[in-house]
């Protein structure tokens, strides 16, 4: 919380999203505050249903029209409030200042248009130019994501490309207008291991080159360890812990983070019996009293079940926070 707000590129404060369904309404994004600096990669970790994709879509202001509404908070990009922009102004931000890489390369490209057309579309909207310059910049975008023979590839349809190649094209669309922030929503989940490694290296290189900030949404702590500078851990719509990656791995402050890290078998080292987290996460519509993790937590006491913990500093430095009663007592 002490990340000074002046050098933050994207600053999110107390963001709340409400989803209304027939079964009732709930807050998949519940009082989120975080920020990212230029050139920084922030990991957003959580399991399915933790609300991490909903956070991403609310930053883009692309929540499903009727079902979900932003219910408060602020999202500032370079000091400019995004939540109060008109839809028209917001459209100019999307793709130009904030861009996004979606999860599934098989379905995130339009099968009816060539990849060149799809890259060009973004360029045309945000940085118009002549036919020739647009084509050159399209090819350049493909070259930057290391697609071989980009002059030929611009005329290909997505159906003619492999999964890894398509995800590069999605990347090319995202970076084509040189955005300040890229949100990557599990971009490598459906890729093979060796292709995933290529893609992560590519993202790193692009970040070094342009200084963009990356919000990397994932459920994989391995990627976080490898790629991110800081991380926030989400559980049932709440941020339970946030801080620098090294600190969180070395000394996780929240029992959920701790359990999650030790529940993943290690590629090297000893084969001890794995720690398990009993039970399962609450359904989104469940009414949660107290700490949402309490039913599965080995340290939980009466207060954890009755009262929601506040967000507090986990150590002296102030860049590591958690919401857990144990940290409050410590």
């Amino acid at each position, binding site marked *: 919380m002490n990340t000074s707000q002046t050098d933050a590129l994207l600053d999110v404060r107390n963001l709340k999203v409400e989803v209304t369904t027939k079964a009732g309404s709930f807050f998949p994004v519940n009082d989120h505050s975080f920020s990212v600096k230029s050139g920084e990669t922030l990991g957003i970790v959580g399991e399915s249903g933790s609300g991490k994709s909903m956070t991403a879509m609310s930053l883009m202001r692309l929540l499903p029209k009727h079902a979900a509404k932003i219910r408060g908070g602020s999202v500032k990009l370079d000091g400019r409030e995004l939540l109060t922009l008109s839809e028209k102004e917001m459209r100019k931000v999307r793709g130009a200042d904030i861009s996004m890489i979606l999860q599934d390369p098989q379905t995130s490209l339009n099968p009816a248009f060539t990849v060149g057309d799809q890259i060009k579309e973004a360029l045309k909207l945000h940085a118009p130019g002549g036919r020739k310059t647009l084509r050159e910049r399209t090819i350049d975008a493909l070259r930057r994501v290391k697609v071989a023979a980009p002059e030929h590839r611009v005329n290909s349809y997505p159906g003619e490309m492999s999964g890894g190649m398509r995800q590069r094209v999605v990347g090319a669309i995202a970076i084509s207008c040189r955005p300040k922030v890229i949100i990557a929503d599990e971009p490598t989940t459906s890729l093979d291991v060796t292709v995933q490694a290529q893609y992560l290296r590519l993202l790193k290189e692009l970040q070094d080159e342009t200084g963009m900030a990356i919000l990397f949404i994932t459920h994989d*702590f391995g*990627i976080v360890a*490898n790629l991110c500078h800081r991380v926030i851990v989400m559980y049932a719509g709440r941020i339970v812990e946030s801080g620098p990656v090294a600190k969180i791995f070395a000394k996780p402050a929240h029992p959920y983070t701790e359990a999650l890290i030790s529940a993943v078998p290690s590629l090297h080292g000893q084969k001890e019996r794995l720690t398990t987290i009993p039970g399962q996460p609450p359904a989104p519509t469940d009414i949660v009293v107290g700490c949402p993790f309490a039913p599965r937590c080995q340290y939980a006491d009466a207060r954890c079940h009755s009262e929601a913990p506040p967000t507090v500093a986990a150590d002296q430095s102030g860049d590591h926070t958690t919401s857990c009663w144990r940290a409050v007592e410590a």
Partner: protein
Amino acid sequence: MTETPILEARNLSKHFTISAGVMTKRTHVVRAVDGLNFDIAKGETLALVGESGCGKTTTTRLLLRLQDPTHGSVRFAGEDVHALKGAALRKYRSRVQAVFQDPWSSINPRVRIRDFVAEPLVVNENLTSGEVDRRVHEALDAVGLGPAHASKFPHEFSGGQRQRIAIASAMVSRPELVVLDEPVSGLDVSIRSQIINLLKDMQAEYGVSFLLVAHDLATTRYLADRVAVMYLGSIVEMGKTDDVFDRPSHPYTEALISAALPSTPGMKRNEIVLGGEVPSPLSPPSGCTFHPRCHRIIGDVCVSKTPVLSPDPAGHCVGCHLY
């Protein structure tokens, strides 16, 4: 390997013929699995690892007799699996079971848990209904679900619970081999470790052998005794899990392990990022199929000659011209 293997695959191959066009007679042959040789010992876990299109799923389908091989054979307890008939086949069916990846599609939504778990018994063995019930309750107990769940329908369970039910059903006939096809990759991280521990416990208790198929190397290392690394339908390296992970010999294994991300930050590693993607099995490269992506290519021999998987004295096999 000290014990006699319970399962032996010899020169196991599966080729598919795909017609290239509707009007023409031109066809392609896809060598989904080509010339596999491996054994599984009693109580052992052998893992097949590799990326999409490497043939590991086809291999499991051959072992489970869901498909017939084009060449080669699978022998289980000394008998050719694909020649079994009648009572012998039923016996094989109850001795070899499977757990599949997706807990949502691997249980028939219209069948009660009791009937789902009991199916291997009902189909293959002549037991009284009371005996079946007893065995089902035992199996549900063993996976940590009470017998009270037996009369429920699958949609009342979460993913992790479903995977437990699938394991109960696979273990109910006390099989000697269970094929685990990506048993945890459809589950959330916090649920995975529960299932991994359960599988370990099952093996310790019943002495069952596992054939594990996984793309997650950390899970593999945790569960498997031996590993076979596959690339484009062939095994490129096979050996004890620790040997393969700590001292990978084949360049592909090296790259695969280096690509798997460490679970702790800042860990030093020798990162090898391969170029390109797995080629289409429709037109595999000549010679060593890995040569177009290989970072340790040694010359024309890689392009022209298919390497042979050869064991060293310790039983570690590598199929590469480097060795």
